[in-house]
């Protein structure tokens, strides 16, 4: 009887998820791989793409959190319409490795659609891993409710050793908000082609609205993760949404572009002087940390020569066009020169454009 009682109590404990997942340590990434996945043929040059898909919100819906909008909870139809657009382009561009940011699963704001499953079911990828950045059973603010969103790696070759690496929390929030807020992460996996070629992949998303040194601390942690995955000369492919400008950008302050109705910045007496996440001037050198260690699909001189061609983000909805570069691909092997494409024509799909490039693994 006592054993039954203990087992029953254990069952209760096991069944009850934590209200907030604080993600304090490195853990296994969640596996979304297909049961009967068939590996694609091996390649010497692979197509890689990174895309912040904005949880299937598209770019026309004015979400309250980042677009001066009044919307919090999207309908199922809105989400599937936007996700179907994203999926159509993924299948058209057909990358071998896809790095996704802002993927929602079991989240109230997207009608609880498991977007990892939705995308996996409608694309050709056999393997997928996911790591949550913000997992909380109920957020009692603005009607957000349940939240589980994060980053993912999708591959046409088997991914093993999927790891979820938490990055430092924002330092510019009070303790209560911090405990309910996003824990940005890097997700890594080990890819093996049928011919035995192996490489590691890391996908990262840094804090968008931090106003202190948070992104720098996150970058340092991210680079330590990357360096740990290149031991023994292992090829490494990495990228994501860094929320940082290239260090040689001409425009550094986007407060005027991003401000909402009634907001005012840059004038004496304005508090804050800058909009959170829109002034990149204090952090403009930080991407050098990555450029110094890895090869970018977008070399700085190429970017400098035609910056607007590589803009991958806009806060303001269309028809306003992309106005800054935040999304990158890096590796410790060379990229095919001139293969970097910022798919700027995909303006309705997200507030980020996908970025793709060809990577020579051999």
């Amino acid at each position: 009887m006592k054993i039954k009682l203990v087992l029953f109590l254990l069952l209760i404990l096991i069944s009850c998820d934590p209200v907030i997942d604080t993600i304090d340590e490195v853990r296994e990434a969640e596996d979304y791989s297909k049961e009967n996945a068939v590996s694609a043929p091996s390649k010497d040059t692979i197509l890689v793409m990174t895309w912040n898909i904005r949880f299937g919100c598209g770019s026309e819906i004015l979400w309250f959190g980042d677009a001066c909008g009044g919307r919090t909870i999207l309908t199922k139809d809105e989400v599937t319409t936007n996700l179907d657009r994203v999926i159509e382009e993924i299948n058209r561009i057909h990358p071998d490795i896809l790095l996704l940011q802002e993927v929602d699963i079991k989240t109230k704001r997207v009608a609880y659609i498991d977007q990892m499953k939705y995308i996996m079911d409608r694309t050709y990828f056999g393997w997928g891993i996911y790591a949550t950045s913000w997992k909380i059973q109920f957020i009692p603010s603005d009607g957000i409710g349940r939240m589980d969103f994060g980053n993912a790696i999708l591959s046409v070759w088997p991914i093993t050793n999927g790891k979820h690496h938490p990055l430092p929390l924002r330092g510019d929030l009070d303790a209560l908000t911090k405990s309910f807020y996003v824990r940005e992460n890097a997700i890594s996996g080990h890819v093996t082609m049928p011919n035995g070629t192996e490489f590691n992949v890391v996908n990262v998303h840094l804090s968008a609205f931090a106003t202190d040194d948070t992104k720098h601390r996150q970058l340092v942690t991210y680079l330590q993760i990357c360096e740990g995955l290149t031991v023994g000369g292992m090829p490494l492919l990495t990228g994501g949404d860094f929320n940082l400008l290239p260090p040689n950008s001409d425009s550094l302050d986007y407060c005027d572009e991003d401000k909402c109705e009634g907001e005012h910045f840059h004038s004496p007496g304005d508090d804050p002087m800058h909009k959170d996440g829109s002034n990149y001037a204090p952090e403009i050198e930080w991407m050098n940390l990555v450029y110094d260690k890895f090869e970018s699909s977008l070399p700085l001189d190429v970017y400098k020569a035609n910056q607007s061609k590589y803009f991958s983000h806009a806060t303001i909805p269309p028809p306003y066009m992309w106005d800054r570069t935040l999304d990158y691909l890096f590796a410790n092997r060379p990229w095919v020169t001139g293969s970097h494409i910022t798919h700027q024509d995909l303006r309705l799909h997200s507030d980020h454009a996908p970025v793709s490039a060809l990577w020579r693994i051999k």
Partner: protein
Amino acid sequence: MRNLTLYIVICILSFASLFAEEESQIFRFYDETANVLPKGDFKYSLFKNAEYGITDDLSVMAHPLLVFVNPSIDVKYNFYKKDELTISSIHGINYPTLMMNSVKGSGTGGFISPEFKIPIMFSIHNGVIATYKLDNSHFLTGKIAFEFALNNSDLAPGTSLDIPVILPRTMVYYKSTGFDIVLASEGSIWHTFDYHASTEFFLFPFGGTNYEKEYSENSTDFFMEINGGAYWNVVKSAKLGITGKLCYGQYPFGSQWHLIPYLDFVKYIE
């Protein structure tokens, strides 16, 4: 921890007014039963509805605080009482619009997004409750009620609060109809200590609503709450207890269990 301390202090303070000595040997229930309070008697607690005996066969029930933000009132009519069995009917009405509007808004405390309009809504429930006396200190209670909602326009699925305790009690506004079934037992354990155990089922078997179309990936038809608690009779007219509520629910995101411990009391004024 501070909230827990505050909660305990509130419970203790609530007891400060309770120390009037009574002589009756009648078992005093914590939970709802088929028994109707005698005319003029009153009982109240923190989490259960208060009850007032209008006549010896008719009582009225409402929560003394929540009734102002979530108007809800029940009446209980005893129509059968013979030997050990008591059977009553229960009829109630709830108006949740006020409460839902009060938790709708921007920023912290905005449980419902301000983008939604909350329609004027009522739910009406009717049921039967029966209590069987096993002996002078052990009782079994069963209840079944049918509820239906009347809305002046559709309630957007995005307004639902998908958390335990709340969702099963508001689901009728999304699904129009539902059943509430309770099985409970109460009695004495030892000396001045009583027990209370109950299982409550919330069933919403009739589909085809907007809510189900919006959240079609998971069934949202069934919720269950299992309560088990021990109560100490501080005085004969009042008892204080600790209860564990084990909740199971079919939420729009999938099934989930929660265990919620809480303190409560019940005070009788006779």
